[in-house]
């Protein structure tokens, strides 16, 4: 393949339809960061080992540094910019702040995305389940413990809220 060949792709990014002309060899991470200018997604290693670049592709966590942008044609993509709600931070974001689950914050978007996927798969995870699910995301600042606590607290918050909603309806 010629290094300057481009392809046209169409996808949904954080709920919005996007069409773009993208170089065929562009990594998804580079497309998201440098073409869409959604720079919340970070690249930590570019070889699929650290998890900082994790995004949700059709609801599943993938490493945007090891797939090409052209592979996501027709998909639904969610990045950290799509996690917050109109009224502010999501329960996970709130709990990361409350539990001091970030220091430099570079790995944080990937952590939030993986944790979002975790809570959608396992709404009430044990500490062991959290640690196993999250083991592909590296953090060098926090020692992980506050992240585990934040995810657990967010699960409580989400479960508590949904129970409250069920009761009121």
């Amino acid at each position, binding site marked *: 393949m010629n*290094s300057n060949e481009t392809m046209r792709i169409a996808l949904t990014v954080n709920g919005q339809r996007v069409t773009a002309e993208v170089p065929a060899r562009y990594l998804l991470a580079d497309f998201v960061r440098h073409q869409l200018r959604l720079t919340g997604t970070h690249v930590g290693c570019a*070889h699929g080992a650290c998890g900082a670049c994790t995004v949700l592709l059709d609801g599943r966590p993938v490493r945007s540094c090891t797939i090409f942008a052209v592979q996501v044609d027709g998909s639904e993509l969610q990045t950290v910019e799509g996690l917050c709600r109109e009224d502010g931070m999501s329960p996970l974001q709130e709990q990361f702040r409350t539990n001091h689950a970030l220091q430099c914050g570079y790995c944080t978007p990937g952590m939030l995305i993986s944790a979002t996927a975790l809570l959608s798969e396992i709404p009430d995870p044990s500490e062991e389940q959290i640690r196993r699910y999250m083991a592909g995301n590296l953090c060098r*600042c926090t020692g992980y413990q506050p992240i585990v606590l934040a995810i657990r607290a967010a699960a409580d918050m989400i479960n508590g809220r949904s129970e409250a909603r069920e009761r009121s309806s």
Partner: protein
Amino acid sequence: MAEPRSIYVGAPVFRREDSRLLLGRATFIDDVPEPFGTVFLAFARSPHAHARIKSIDTSAAMAARGVIAVLTGADIAAGTKPIVSPTLKGEPQLVRQNMAIEEVRHVGETVAVVVAENAYLAEDAIELVEVEYEQLPCVLSIADALAPGSARVHEYLAGNRVFNLKYEVPGTAEVFSRAQHVMSDRFSSERLSGVAMETRGFLTSFDRGTNKLRHMSTAQLPHKMRWELADALQLPEMSVQVIAPHVGGSFGMKTVTFPEDVVGAVISRKLGRPVKWIQDRQEDLALMHAREYRFDVEMAFDADGHILAVRNTAVVNIGAYPLWIATAGIEAGGAGHHMMGPYRIKHYAYDVSSVVTHKAPVASYRGVASPMCALSTETLLERMAARLGIDSVEVRRRNLLRPADLPFVNAVGIPHDTASHLECLDKALALTDYEQFKRTRSGKLGADGKYRGIGIACIADHNGQGTSIARSRGQSSRWPGYDGAFIRIEPDGKAVCHVSLASQGQGHQTVFAQIIADELGLPIEDVTIEHSDTAMMPFGTGTAAARAAVAGGGAVLKASQRIAAKLRRIASYLMEASPDDIVLANGKAAVPGAPELSVDIRQIAATAYVIGPQNLPQGETIGLEATEFYDPPTSSYSNATHAVQLAVDSKTGQVTIEKYVVVHDCGKRLNPLIVDGQIIGGVAQGIGSVLTEAMRFNEEGQPLTTTLLDYTVPTFLDVPRIEVHHIESVSTINPGGMKGVGEAGTIGAVPAVVMALNAAMVQFSSALTALPVWPGTLMDVMHGKQ
């Protein structure tokens, strides 16, 4: 005078940095929008540890699509001054080119740079740079470097030793010769890397109209980088602006101005275009190292286990070139300085050196030499206890500094003013049920096929050093010891403070705002902290060596107090009250008990800027601002006991940490959330240094661990829950009562984990003395191969 009320200081205030980081709106270096015309770099690097460059052919790369220029060492040398470092007395200075010219001295040294329209095209063209090398013999280890007749890394130097510092408390040699017991051993560590989650990078722009360089970079020490760039490009310092945006961790590794920064600036000046480079992870792992040590440590004891004297002969492998300009001795100096730890040691001597080899140059890494110092002393102390038949906890008790000993000036002249060594020890023992565990489980094989071990380590963490201490360690005068703060209350009554310390995740924008809000009586929302821009920040030493809270906190406090005094004076004039009766709180200056005597700080600000209805009192200057510097008169010592219970699988050598307790004392805690974060994060890195990490090389000097699958930092599954408890022995050395906290977690974790491993393996081996300790090491121990 009424003391300011502590509303924020000491409280677990949530971080003010967090929301932008959590929402994906923080700007790291690679997120900065590139100015129009930005070009991108990729570097061709030496694949050899030592080789002569016979020829470089850049023509194919030059002809590649999107390539604007290809430069080699000679081109770069034409546009910059080489980096010059001092060496031993009487020897020529050590010169480092910013890009290799005739000879490469480590794998990864740059030999050419491609400038292209985007990063993809720059990397494509790198493949087309043809370099012909003649491979030369390489010197890799400390032993090789010091061997008589070994090859010299720099031919014009007499040998490979480039730094040597000696010190002896008079009488030390005599104490050793007369001591009843002397324990000694060699302790060593393989190289580590800090592995900040964000790699290095820069976006630099030289303005050829004004002859000014604007260098955005992942700098940990922006002022140091400004000076180094100014020197390399022969510009006045005022013509270089270094700005660090959000920086994704550093741990000491980004303190260094690497040659790529200089090359980028030279190219921007040459082409008149902004230049961008983001280091990839392989470059990061191949190039950013620290802590390759060899310590020969001796300890003399009396028959009751009292330490009589300590001697450390240490050598540090600093790689091919000293990176800390003006000193190759940052790690070696630490090896000399930190050996006494928390113990009452009167006689002490050191002889510390740095050697050059054909490996990548080192920077400093969290704790520098202290983890190794603590590992050596704790190991020898335990071994002595075993020989004397005294419990090792009891031997620690006999040697730890007691309250009655304080203040205690240690053998390198630094006072321990306040401390809680025995309290920390007792609490850690109680929390881990130490005696019971040691008696019933430690050293024994459980029914699950695992050996259990319990270990403790007592540490004193040297931090917050001022200029006098930096000088005594032979450190660069460009890294002095004081820090600065410039605070201004704006006409709308809100305060901004520029500090001389950049942040790489430590939470400066929260902690310093807590201090100012309390001193000025403002809600914290009305206080903003700015850092990391040399055009705005006062000159200072910067964030490193667990000194920000002490030196930066001191400067912030002093500047706040000057402004608070002026607020009171103006308020006193406006209210006709004595300034001594006025308290600043809740955004007001008020006299307690006199409700009518209250004025908004906003109104005082308006008066200060003469934009309100009132005039300034006679003799007051316009505005509300102050710049202050704080130079700690000496250093501070934090202290801690770490206690670890772990299991070693007898079939695999796999280690599981089952309980981890830290009892810590860093004096006044400004923000308990942030303090705990520093300790726990530090422990995680210490665990990594022992159990999971090492930078490995083959016999040709080829780094083998250049991906995060090979260089394995601890994951969610490697770091256990860490319990942190506190004792607060407030410092008497600085006005805020603070001590540093950034490094202590790492310094305690390394010896504590190794002591627990020694305890688990007690029936097989005397002690583990080389880091790392991987499952294979432990299998060898269990099979009697060690």
